Structure formats: structure tokens, C-alpha cells
């Protein structure tokens, strides 16, 4: 009963309307409201289909590709790393550069002095690049920094001079060890870390693999699952890791703004009931549009797979299992901090948290759904709805993440109940 009253309070008015509009616009901008052009095609051996590429730990592929990439970064002395998820460009000092050169030398058999010297001439060039202008092409790299690429210059010439090839007697485990020591010099999080090297092993997907993949999509996801997952990924990252906080803050501020707090404090109702009902009302109000949108999105593919068995509940499953925990944590932070401080500070806190989390980016699918990610990402870009196996592999991680945030939000709500009860009794008076 009280739940309906609180729901009505949350839904009535402009803020909620804005909430819905922003959710629709945000999701529409990511193209996840209509998948009708994204059919998963059944592999056909007779047609000349390209099934895409995958990463595999094949030393013969990885070693040359990795050493080439390392040498290129060495020349520019600008190494891309993701130590805590943020992209970070590392610049090494002379000592460290020398160590990297040593490692490259060890792997390639080229004299260290030669390698070291090639870097010298290149870095001179690099320092002048901005001034030279003509030769340099400066472009934003999308991370707030700039990528400077030399159109013609010594760097390239030098690179041509040094034909890098991995020593014949280099074993893969040795190679991995050496590359790992580069990662250590860089402070971790680079592409050369032992577990990241696989990124250099690109191989085309074979027909048999494509069939296996298709069978998983068909039997495990029943087609709809993958799309619902991609929808959830965006819904959480773009909207539900931040927006529900507004609804929570508004409902928690409402009594005070209406000068109604004391009329409510004096009532018989328990603090547990009033806070819980408000929390649930915010959740219901937040989830309502996203459930509708998830179905609008999912229905768009229902006729792509005639005569197939689809899972019509997939959107609902992912809404509740994947998106709801995000709504819970943002709403809980909102309601808790608002009751604690009587200010909308929670909006700033959530905005900051969200901003940092989104900037953690998606280095790789497996690294982006870790335990503490506010918005765990599971999105490998195009054809994500193909990646059932990835999802099966990462499921325990995602589950742990979602359970963590669900638990955390329950703790926050219980905390809020105590805060609210204390306020009712005038125990927070120092704030006046």
C-alpha cells in the first residue's frame, strides 16, 4: 500500500519524465534499441564466409607481433598501459629504456648498442616533432592526450634498418618471462604482461569453430540472450550506474523540502518500512522503462529466426540479474547519503564514481567485468551477441560482481534505516 504511494510520488512529475527521456536517448544513441540488422548467420561451408578472428596463444604468431609492437613503443618512448584500468602512457628514463633495449636485444639478437642508438635519434626527433609541424601529424587520441605520428622521419628509416626477428633458439616461456620483465619496468598493465600477450595471437576463426559458436548461440542463448546481454551492458554503463541516484535523492529530499519531515517522523510507521518502501519504489520506477526498452530492443530480432526456439524471457532475466543490481547500488547510495547529509551530495559522489568507472574503459572483455567495477562491461563490440562462450567463461566474475553490489546496497539501505531512526529522535541535531 505504502509502496504504491511512494511509487506514485516518484513517478509523478518532471524529474521522472526526464529520467525516462535520458534513458531512451542514451540507449538509442548506442543503437541497442533495434537489432534488426544484426542477424547471427548460420555458418555455411559452401559460401565463402568470413567468420572473423580470435585470439589464441600461438607462439609463432605472438612473438614477432609482440616484439615489433614493443620496439615501436620503445622508439617513441611512449608505452600504453592500463595499470588500474585508466589508459596511461608511460615514459621511461634512460636507465629503464636501456633495460628495455637489453631485453629487445636478448630476444632478437641485435646488438643492444644498435637498438639503443636507434632510439636516441628517434627521441631527438620526437622532441622536436611539435615544433617541426610539417612532419608531424598531431591528433587527439580520444583519451585527452594526443597522438603524434611522424609522417616521414628518422624513426621509420631506423625501423627499416633494424629488421627485427625473434632468435631461433628463443623458447616461448623464455620470451614470456622477458616480456613480463618489460611489463614490470612499465609498472604493470601493459600488453606485454604474460597474461596479455595472447592479444597478439590473431587467427581466423575456422568453419568448425564458427559452427560451435553458432550452436551455442542457438542452444544456450536461444538467440535472444546475446542481444539482451548487449542491451544490459549499455544500459548499465550509460544509464543505470548513475541515473537512479537522481530518483533516490529526490524522494529522500522531498519531505524536508516540503517542510513535512516532522509530520512523518511522528507517525507510527517504522523507519525500516518507510525507507524500504521508498527504496523499492525508486527501484520499480527506475526499472520500469528499462524493462520496456529491453523488450522493445529484443523484439526487434524475434522475427529474424523463424522456426527457432527463442528465449522470450531473456530480456527480463538480464534486466533483473544484470541491470537491477546497478539500480540498487546507485539508489542505495543516493538514499543513504541524502538521509545522512540532507544534501544532494550523493549525485556528485555517484557522478564521480561513474565517471571514473567508465573511464576505466574496456581494455579487454575479460578485464572489464572484474569484481569492483561499478559498471561491469561485457561487450566485445560488433557481434557481441556471438560471444556466448566468452560469457559462459566470464559468468562467475560477473555474478560475483553483481552479488557484491546487491549486497552492498542492502547494507547501505539497512544503514539508512538506522540513520533515519536516529534523525527521527533528534539525534542528528548538530547539523542544524
Amino acid at each position, binding site marked *: 500500500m505504502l509502496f504504491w504511494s511512494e511509487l506514485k510520488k516518484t513517478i509523478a512529475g518532471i524529474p521522472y519524465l526526464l529520467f525516462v527521456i535520458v534513458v531512451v536517448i542514451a540507449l538509442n544513441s548506442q543503437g541497442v534499441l533495434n537489432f534488426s540488422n544484426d542477424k547471427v548467420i548460420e555458418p555455411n561451408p559452401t559460401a565463402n564466409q568470413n567468420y572473423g578472428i580470435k585470439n589464441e596463444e600461438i607462439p609463432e604468431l605472438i612473438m614477432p607481433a609482440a616484439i615489433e609492437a614493443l620496439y615501436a613503443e620503445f622508439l617513441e618512448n611512449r608505452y600504453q598501459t592500463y595499470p588500474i584500468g585508466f589508459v596511461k602512457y608511460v615514459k621511461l628514463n634512460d636507465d629503464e629504456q636501456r633495460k628495455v633495449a637489453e631485453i629487445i636485444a636478448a630476444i632478437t639478437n641485435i646488438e643492444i648498442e644498435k637498438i639503443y642508438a636507434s632510439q636516441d635519434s628517434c627521441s631527438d626527433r620526437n622532441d622536436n616533432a611539435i615544433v617541426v609541424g610539417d612532419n608531424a601529424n598531431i591528433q587527439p587520441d580520444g583519451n585527452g592526450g594526443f597522438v603524434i605520428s611522424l609522417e616521414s622521419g628518422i624513426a621509420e628509416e631506423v625501423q627499416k634498418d633494424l629488421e627485427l626477428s625473434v632468435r631461433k633458439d628463443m623458447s616461448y616461456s623464455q620470451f614470456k618471462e622477458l616480456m613480463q620483465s618489460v611489463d614490470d619496468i612499465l609498472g604493470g598493465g601493459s600488453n606485454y604482461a604474460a597474461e596479455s600477450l595472447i592479444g597478439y595471437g590473431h587467427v581466423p576463426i575456422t568453419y568448425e569453430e564458427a559452427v560451435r559458436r553458432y550452436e551455442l548461440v542457438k542452444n544456450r542463448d536461444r538467440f535472444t540472450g546475446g542481444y539482451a546481454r548487449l542491451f544490459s551492458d549499455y544500459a548499465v554503463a550509460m544509464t543505470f550506474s548513475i541515473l537512479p541516484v537522481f530518483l533516490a535523492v529526490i524522494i529522500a529530499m522531498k519531505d524536508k523540502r*516540503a*517542510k513535512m519531515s516532522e509530520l512523518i517522523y*511522528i507517525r507510527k*510507521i517504522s523507519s525500516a518500512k518507510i525507507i524500504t518502501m521508498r527504496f523499492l519504489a525508486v527501484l520499480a520506477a527506475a526499472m520500469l522503462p528499462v524493462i520496456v526498452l529491453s523488450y522493445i530492443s529484443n523484439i526487434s530480432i524475434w522475427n529474424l529466426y523463424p522456426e527457432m526456439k527463442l528465449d522470450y524471457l531473456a530480456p527480463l532475466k538480464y534486466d533483473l540479474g544484470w541491470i537491477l543490481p546497478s539500480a540498487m547500488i546507485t539508489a542505495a547510495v543516493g538514499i543513504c547519503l541524502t538521509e545522512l547529509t540532507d544534501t544532494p551530495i550523493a549525485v556528485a559522489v555517484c557522478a564521480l564514481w561513474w565517471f571514473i568507472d567508465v573511464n576505466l574503459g574496456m581494455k579487454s572483455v575479460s578485464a572489464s567485468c572484474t569484481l569492483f567495477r561499478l559498471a561491469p562491461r561485457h561487450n566485445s563490440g560488433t557481434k557481441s551477441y556471438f560471444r556466448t562462450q566468452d560469457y559462459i567463461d566470464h559468468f562467475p566474475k560477473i555474478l560475483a560482481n553483481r552479488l557484491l553490489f546487491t549486497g552492498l546496497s542492502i547494507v547501505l539501505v539497512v544503514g539508512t534505516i538506522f540513520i533515519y531512526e536516529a534523525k527521527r529522535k533528534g539525534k542528528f541535531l548538530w547539523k542544524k
Partner: protein
Amino acid sequence: MNNIIEIKNLNKFYGKKQALSDVTLSIKPGMFGLLGRNGAGKTTLMRTLAALLQKKSGSVTICGIPIENEKEIRKIIGYLPQEFSMYPSMNVMEAMDYLALLSGLNKQERRERIEVLLQKVNLTEHRKKKIRALSGGMKRRLGIAQALLNNPKVLIVDEPTAGLDPEERIRFRNLLSEVAEERIVILSTHIVGDIEATCENIAILDSGKVLYQGTVHNLLAVADGKVFTKTVDRKELPTLKRDLMITGMHTQGRDVSVRFLTEHGTSNAEACAPNIEDAYMFYLKKNGAELEVNGNVILE
């Protein structure tokens, strides 16, 4: 379970500032008036009774329930804060229904109770009016109605007549008197007239201390023989103001009829019967309260 409120040696601080000191009161069913200037501590005392504030020391029991038992206290208390409003976009019915829900009334009870109460406070025809569109007087009446939703044994109303016009004020007092037939009603005010018209038992609060507790009758008795009137020329007024405690003035052409208080008799003045204002002023003065009196009693 008895039907009285017992307050013993109640102390309350806001930081270092003491807002109530050693307040001891016993309040019986009927209307109880709490009189005091602004800042006297009336609101503090009432909020403490409504379990909305923590006391520093002392004991309070309401109908036998210790104030620390907020859960039970909330069931038997109705409270009309000095300043309040409700969600502006709700209408009268919706706001009442929401508050009744929080008071634990079921649907049937809510419907009946709200209808009776709106009738009682004369708001039935405004039931669909938005809260933001209510006048000050209507809002106060709605305030009383909401405070009565749970049919409380104790109704606490904090300066309910402030800001009402004379007609509304009289109606409001009558409403309270009616309500007080079956429960304790504690009314705070800084307007003596409110008390005079409605309360049998009163307490005077000043600087957090109880200066007087008892019946209106006894309060008047204390000031008996200490109130006089005299007619003087306007020019004499400044000296008079300095020397006497003036509680009223009437100007008639060049002459001014002055009403004043004095403990020692006086010549060429006419003794007259004290009213509550006189007695109240007398009490404040006797207790060393700093008063600035200028013609009419100003208790602000």
C-alpha cells in the same frame, strides 16, 4: 495506564546553550496552555514531548510511557509543528491519505477518519485543493486534522494561531477546545489572548525555565491588588514609562489612560482587576526577565 504527562527536571541543551532547565510539569487531560516569549523554549519542550528531540537529563512519561520508548509514544501522540507544510503538488485528500497510511490506518479506516476530520476542520469542500493553493488558515486546520488522524491521547500544537486573522483564530480555539474534551491538548503560544480564552491550566516558560504552573485563576490572584490605572497628560508619559511597568495605554486627546503594575500601592491611581496579561507581565518581571514594554504587551 494513567492519563497524565509527567515531566521531571527536564534539561535540554543545543550545544552549549541550555534551552530547557529543570522543567518540572504535570499535565492533566483538557487544554493546557504553554505561554512564553519567542525563544522561551516552548517548541523545544513540545518537540521533546513528541520524541523528536533527545533530552539531556530528567524524566518524561506520557500516559505512563517513558519518552525513550518512541515506538509507543508515536502511537499516542498527535503533533502540529509550529512550521510545517505538505507535498505541494498533492491535494488535501491525498496528503491526508498518505499521512494516515503512515499512521497505520487501513483503507476503510482512512476513508472514514479523513472524512470526519475534514468535516471537523471545515475543509470538506476543499478536499481536492492542492496544498500549495491553501491559505494559511486552511493549512493550520489541515494541520490539526492530520494530527488527529491516529486519534491521539495527547495532541501537541505549537503556536497554531500565529498568522491567523482574528476570526480564524477564534474558530481555531473553539476547535481545539472541542478536541480537548477527550484528551490532553497542549497549546503553546506567545499570545496571551489564546490562553485566556481556552485554557484552565497553564505554565509560563521563560529562558527555558518554568516561571509559573497552575490555574489561570491562581495566576490572576497573584497580581491582584497590583494593577492600577491612571490618567495623565501626554507629556508625563516618558517619566512614567521609566518608573512604572506599563501594560496598557489609551490615548484620548491630550490625555493618556495608563494601565500599570506595581508591587507597592500607589496614590492617585485607581486599582483594577488584573487580567492574564497583567499577571503574566508581573511574573516575568518578578523573575527578573528583561522586558521591553511599550504600551501593549509585547512578548516577542
